[in-house]
């Protein structure tokens, strides 16, 4: 039976221990079918190429090798291009302007808020957002984008397209595949490994024109994406955060090392050469009186009710009333029993 080159690429990508570099090396000297002949003897290699290929066809997963006409143009000249990509959704998403947005899995309220706004702003401007579908910032930016429906999300993941990771993002995963594009270097059924996330990050950088790191801890995985962006000479933004916040250590360090601070969501559009499509909204005036005192007491950290009472010097019922007002007007958000300042939309 005649199988396309992509079938052999899929089989080789499924061999444990065969990474993008090995594949590239093999394919630089051999055809996919010959390369498969070399690698098929490795332990854990898929026994039946035709069966694996059949599964991909049945699942409607598009497999593109570097020679395939649909292979993303953005990756053709990449220093480390993936030898094969597994796609679900519409590859036309990559014809748009593209911004990579990544960040920590454990973002603060502020970080998630910025990510979500960034997603919304880029969506309204029609810019595709490339991200990694991880918990925290990655999820927030795509959700923000999906709310506007203005541009497709592009999700690059580190496991097979049928292996949803993290499990909590099952719905988002499906939605990105339906309304945007879901990409992976891994064939169906492959579970994520420790190294598959850094490898995935280089594809995010490779597909982006600008990269924004929203929040990252000192040694966060997002910093890999930042490194990859620098390796590709991409404009790199980092969102400044409080110097006391663990989640902002990595991003603040990036700024100190020369990344551009993201002072406004619109900065990204300027970097893409897009003028701001809508005039920036007039800021909502800050509340005064008792609410103002409670808001001041919240500073810009996540604080408990008791802290708000202690810092504001108000009574508990007064603080309770103010919190209710502030939550309703969007100045405060509650999560896990703590309150954090946000900006009303």
């Amino acid at each position, binding site marked *: 039976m005649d199988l396309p080159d992509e079938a052999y690429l899929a089989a080789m990508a499924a061999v444990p221990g065969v990474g993008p570099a090995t594949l590239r090396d093999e394919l630089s000297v051999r055809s996919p079918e010959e390369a498969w002949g070399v690698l098929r003897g490795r332990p854990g290699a898929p026994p039946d190429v035709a069966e694996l290929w059949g599964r991909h066809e049945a699942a409607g997963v598009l497999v593109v090798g570097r020679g395939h006409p649909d292979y993303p143009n953005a990756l053709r000249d990449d220093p480390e291009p993936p030898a094969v990509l597994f796609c679900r959704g519409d590859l036309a998403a990559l014809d748009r302007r593209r911004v990579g947005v990544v960040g920590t899995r454990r973002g603060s309220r502020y970080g998630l808020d910025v990510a979500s706004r960034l997603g919304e702003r880029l969506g309204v401007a029609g810019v595709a957002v490339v991200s990694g579908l991880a918990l925290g910032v990655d999820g927030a930016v795509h959700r923000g984008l999906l709310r506007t429906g203005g541009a497709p999300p592009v999700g690059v993941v580190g496991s097979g397209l049928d292996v949803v990771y993290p499990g909590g993002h099952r719905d988002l995963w499906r939605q990105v595949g339906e309304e945007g594009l879901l990409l992976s270097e891994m064939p169906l059924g492959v579970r994520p490994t420790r190294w598959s996330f850094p490898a995935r990050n280089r594809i995010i950088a490779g597909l982006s024109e600008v990269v924004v790191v929203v929040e990252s801890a000192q040694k966060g995985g997002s910093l890999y994406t930042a490194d990859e962006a620098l390796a590709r000479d991409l404009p790199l933004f980092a969102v400044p955060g409080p110097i006391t916040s663990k989640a902002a250590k990595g991003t603040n360090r990036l700024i100190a090392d020369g990344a551009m601070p993201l002072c406004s969501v619109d900065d990204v559009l300027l970097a893409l050469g897009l003028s701001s499509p809508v005039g920036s909204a007039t800021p909502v005036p800050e509340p005064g009186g008792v609410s103002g005192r409670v808001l001041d007491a919240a500073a810009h950290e996540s604080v408990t009710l*008791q802290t708000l009472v202690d810092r504001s010097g108000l009574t*508990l019922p007064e603080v309770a009333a103010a919190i209710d007002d502030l939550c309703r007007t969007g100045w405060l958000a509650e999560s*896990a*029993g*703590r309150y954090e300042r946000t900006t009303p939309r």
Partner: protein
Amino acid sequence: MLASITSACLLGIDGHAVRVEVHITSGLPGFTIVGLPDAACREARDRVRAAVTNSGFDFPNRKITVNLAPSSLRKAGSGLDLAVAVGVLVASDQVPGAGIDDLAFFGELGLDGSLRSVRGMVSLVDASPVADVVVPAAAYAEATVYGRHQVRCARRLVEVVEALRGDEPWPDPPKPGAPVPPIGPVVARDLADVRGQAAARSALEVAAAGGHHLLMVGPPGAGKTMLASRLPGLLPPLGVDEALAVARIRSAVGETLGIGELSTTPPFRAPHHTASPVALTGGGSGLLRPGEVSRASHGVLFLDEMGEFAPAVLDALRQPLEDGVIRITRAQAAATFPARFLLVGAMNPCPCGEAGPEGCTCSDGERSRYRRRLSGPLVDRFDLRVDVQRPSPDELLRGEPGESSAEVAARVREARARAAARGVVCNSRIPRRRLDELCPVTPETELVLEGALAGGRLSARGLDRVRRVSRTLADLEGHDGPADVGHVRMALILRAQPLVAA
């Protein structure tokens, strides 16, 4: 020769009247007990034989058959010893049989003829069909709890026999001794010792006033246990019926009660987190013993380090929390125990205890596993959920002492009186059908509730609970009308979601 003696045995926390029939006949000497006795009960043979002999009476060297009626009821424990011994002595004509039917006998015998108390004496005496009861002197306090019986007590079998023969009067009851020991391991202490913690103090007061379950979340050393141990001091003293119910349970688990006044201190139970499901709910093979939920009935059940309890143990609490009773069903028997307690939980926000983005060293997996230990339905049953923070050094060293327990307890009593005037024991037990009548929503409070529902701060299930807590807050302020916006906002704040991740 036949004798029939009245006694009772314990099943769960209830006594059941038992007739001990003793038949002595000629034949091969022997001593058999029939009528579903358990092992301890069957061993009465050896105890009775030794006690009778060592008290200086003759143990008949004939065939003795003891029947425990009704024979379908399983008899557990050693409380029938005295009745069996008296029966043997009556049937062998060593004690006159006249008038023996007007007395009931309870207690365990020692080999030397001494009388010992057994578990559940309160319920045993309560179950006695006759007005005169004979109990071991050690059980005098428990036997007189209900006060409906003429209680005679003795220290030794000889004293019983001499009194029955009319040779001696019944011995005097023991004098009231040491004061009643407080229930539970933690003695009620004063709230004035707690500095700062306005939010937690407020939640504690509302919990006491409305009987609302309280969950405190905070890092180690924040004072969660300290706060919880102040709760019994805020609760109103038990009423007579409640005090009787508590005494019954305490007696049934083998606690010794003090002589004199019935204790009206609400129980405070704080089982360790290694407790098994049965230790908490009650049960056990054969005789069903009440568990911690029943021992905490009419008082406080405090679960410290709630995140460390086995999830199965915690979920076993859901049914009693809802129904106020716990039904224990085993192949051998079934029992229903009271389980109307105020649940107070304390836990760390995550395994390392340092909540918040700063300081926490737990991985996402660890945190979500920890959170999952408390199931959603259980968390939902806490009307009050507060975050307790470590007080600042300034507060600890220079803070003003807070309000004393006496001041807060006075407000709690007042609030409970208001609830009682409406015909409810406490606001947390306002039935759903009376919610619109007792916790009406005004147009102003409706706006606040709507906002909270729309903003995701409040779930539909939480709505009713917030209404009840608002009622309590209004009651605490001496406000009889509908709860106002301030009360509803307070209720919302005191029901934050301390555990569910964003």
